[in-house]
């Protein structure tokens, strides 16, 4: 959020066009407050405001924006003739607000008649109707964990781990819940590893508060594709798969992907061997592990194991 060097002209103008109406409504405000509110350095803010004050057209030379900044770092705006109202919402901005509102309204515990619903109704009235539906179903424990994260309330959970294939009893301090590609995750301090870990909420089988609380600290919630790669020591597998199975490279983060006629070669991050085993079983024998060697037979071995364990008599 804090770009190095001066911001591009476009960003500066856009920001000026939201700051001026805001200032017009108040008459005066400190540079410090505006700097925080609009995510801009005080220096840059001062430069831009002073330049705006220079603007003028005949017969209003230099008085288009009647503004000065006093010695205490407070900007004062006289009776404004221009930029009293902000620029209309662009289509992408309107869409983002609608998506945000509908997403938050689909969250556990959202009040369907509360302030957000009212804001959304007003927004929809201005932006027009649409046939846009967001499907954001969450596992039942999501609401409880979100509330625990807000209060830093420690919880005791039973968690089924796919990599170890066992249920473990853990104490977690929830930091955030997040969704990515349709799945919900919990970011929490894990007592077992003593580290921050990510848990799939649909694999949390039981959950209760312990009564203890964690200490506040800043956390970074992963965005989109990057979080899979952030997993410590994630190994890489190179797969050769039919083009028809392209969904794999769209659904899971890939480190590289190349297309060669009727097949793809993808380097993928492997969170755990069990994850890869499951993927290979799903993809079938048409997908080949190119490297590393120890996983070349993983799919075939897993298929044989499953046949023996479950379908030996067939």
């Amino acid at each position: 959020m804090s770009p190095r060097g001066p911001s591009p002209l476009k960003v500066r103008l856009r920001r000026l066009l939201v700051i001026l109406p805001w200032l017009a409504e108040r008459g005066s405000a400190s540079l410090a407050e505006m700097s925080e509110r609009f995510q801009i350095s005080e220096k840059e803010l001062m430069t831009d405001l002073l330049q705006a004050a220079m603007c003028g057209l005949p017969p209003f030379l230099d008085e288009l924006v009647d503004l000065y900044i006093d010695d205490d770092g407070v900007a004062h705006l006289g009776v404004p003739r221009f930029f009293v109202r902000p620029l209309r919402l662009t289509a992408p901005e309107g869409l983002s607000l609608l998506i945000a509102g509908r997403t938050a309204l689909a969250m556990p515990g959202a009040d369907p008649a509360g302030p957000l619903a009212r804001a959304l109704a007003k927004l929809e009235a201005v932006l027009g109707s649409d046939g846009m539906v967001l499907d954001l179903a969450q596992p039942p424990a999501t609401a409880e964990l979100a509330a625990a994260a807000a209060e830093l309330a420690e919880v005791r959970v039973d968690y089924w781990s796919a990599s170890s294939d066992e249920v473990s009893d853990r104490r977690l301090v929830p930091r955030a819940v997040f969704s990515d590609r349709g799945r919900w995750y919990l970011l929490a301090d894990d007592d077992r590893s003593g580290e921050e870990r990510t848990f799939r909420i649909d694999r949390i089988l039981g959950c209760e508060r312990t009564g203890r609380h964690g200490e506040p600290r800043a956390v970074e919630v992963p965005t989109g594709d990057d979080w899979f790669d952030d997993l410590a020591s994630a190994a890489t597998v190179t797969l050769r798969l039919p083009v028809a199975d392209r969904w794999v490279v769209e659904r899971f983060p890939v480190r590289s992907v190349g297309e060669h006629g009727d097949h793809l070669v993808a380097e993928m991050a492997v969170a755990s061997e069990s994850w890869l085993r499951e993927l290979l079983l799903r993809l079938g024998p048409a997908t080949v592990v190119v490297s590393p060697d120890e996983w070349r037979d993983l799919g075939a071995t897993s298929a044989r194991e499953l046949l023996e364990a479950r379908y030996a008599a067939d």
Partner: protein
Amino acid sequence: MASPLERVTNLLTLLLETRVPLTLKQIQHELTGMYPDNPVALRGAFERDKALLRDIGVPIETEVLGGDQAGETAYLIDRDRYELRGLQLDDDERHALQMAVATIRSETGQEGVWKLGGSALPTSTVVANVAQHEALPTLRGASGARTTVGFRYRGTDRELDPYGLLLREGFWYVIGHDHRHGEVRTYRVDRIEGAVTVFDGRSFERPSGFDVRAAFPADAKMLGEPEDGATSAVVAVDPPLASVVRTELGDEAVLDPASAGAAYAGAAYAGALSGARGASGAVVFRVPCANRDAFRSWVLGLGLHAEVLGPPEVRADLVSWLRSFGDATPTPSVAAATGATGATGATGATGATS
């Protein structure tokens, strides 16, 4: 010479202020000394400023003049279209919307929040990574206005009456009447190639009672043609995954072991429940399986913890899938030859699109 910010701000003000559209010559005259004198440089500088203003959403109207200025283009901004109006939020509403935008962490949404008088976004303990795509605003607009759109998809031009948009499993889909195919089709928005064209003047009626969710298969395992055979399978799932599956499918999918047993008496089912795994509290579910590929993906995701009990042909399908691993020699030529039969995937993404 004025700074670029000063010049473009002055241009914006001039075009907002004027009652009649202004030609570039008039603009240059009004903004004395701000634009270069050289006609080519002047046009270049003006075009850059105009593009910048349009880029941030300023609606600049153009008019081609007649009379003694015939052929010249003149410019103006309609103040009514420029200003944000009719959206008065109360403080609690603005705050709620700002928190909502914090949930999706959208920079574009932040711009909107500022325009509505909000501040920098706080950090949120609930975050939804919702994909944004540049085609979405256009598609939403066209869907709301009931206007036909065109786009390129998998190398073919499509014409679609966009009935609605759906976000599911992290992907955006546009659903509507496809003119070429004469039926309702679903397209993944992020796979649209290039820009979406809006065919202004070509409007459509959305069928009354059209439900976007209903038009899109709710469950990838239900995709496919029901006449293919069995539409549901019986699957035993061991603890602890049984509770995960119960959460996913709902209590109504749980079968009474006795009746399930009667249905598949004599088959492997008896063995499943009497075996060590079955005895330890396996739960039996009825699971949609019309889309056999998606069903197989789903059940394989449960690894050794699940067993397809029936119907026999569904079980046989799975067994032959597993056996095919043993048959195959993992060489590229085999991979290519069997490529077309690959799994569809549980997202429904491939299966649902055309």
